[in-house]
């Protein structure tokens, strides 16, 4: 629901995007920094996307509303796919964490609050490419 808000926050952070490669998203969006926001946990970046790139995926959600407002607690993963030749990726993962943790995210249809991000954890995807993964949690209420 708020993956675009997370993506927009990262795209607006010059410290995060400085070292990210561009990607041609096509259509209206055109060429932007390689930050992908997916609907599904199974989606992967296009094969022509260069590393490093950032992938935002929904993980889970649960009820958190009041008697008057619709709301929820949302869980997202933010993953930095890393080029094996890059040595500065750990610092980029740190910058992503600092950009999102306790940040203000804006959305047309929801008020978003309580944005917390766990520090990045190094790992590898199924193709053994290294990655840094962070878990983002926030509360939302319908405007």
């Amino acid at each position, binding site marked *: 629901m708020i993956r675009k808000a997370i993506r927009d926050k990262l795209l607006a952070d010059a410290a995060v995007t400085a070292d990210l490669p561009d990607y041609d998203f096509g259509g209206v969006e055109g060429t932007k920094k390689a930050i992908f926001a997916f609907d599904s946990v199974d989606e992967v970046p296009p094969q022509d996307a260069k590393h490093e790139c950032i992938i935002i995926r929904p993980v889970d959600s649960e009820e958190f509303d009041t*008697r008057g407002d619709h709301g929820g607690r949302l869980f997202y993963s933010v993953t930095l796919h890393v080029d094996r030749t890059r040595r500065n990726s750990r610092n980029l993962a740190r910058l992503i964490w600092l950009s999102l943790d306790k940040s203000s995210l804006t959305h047309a249809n929801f008020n978003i609050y*309580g944005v917390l991000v766990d520090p990045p954890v190094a790992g590898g995807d199924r193709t053994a490419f290294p990655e840094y993964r962070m878990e983002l*949690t926030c509360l939302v209420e319908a405007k």
Partner: protein
Amino acid sequence: MSKQAGFEGAVDINGVELDLARDAQLSINGEMIDVTARDSKGWEENIYGINSWGLTVTAVFKEGDATLAVIRNALLLKTELNDVRYIYKDGEGFKGGAKVESIGAPQPFRDAATYEIALVGNGAVAAVTGQS
């Protein structure tokens, strides 16, 4: 009247729904006076004493919310909430006047800030039928 979930009910304060409420619980208590004596044949005996009622509500804190302000001011200014209603989905429930005994305001680091409100009835609680 059908079965229903808790979120389908409402807490109204002076005619306005406290729509930030999450959990709410009404308690109606009858005080027991122990009159057990040697003629009680081994069983405790009680008679009714004074009844009382109270309401506890956990509400998500929201800056500038008018109904939370009414509750907060009632405690700070030591005034009564004249019309407190605890209503089920179909309008049945209870109503009465109450005073604000306490407002807890936790700010858990990884969760939403809330108000934990304890109201104590002032006088009788009356049953509400339908939208009366």
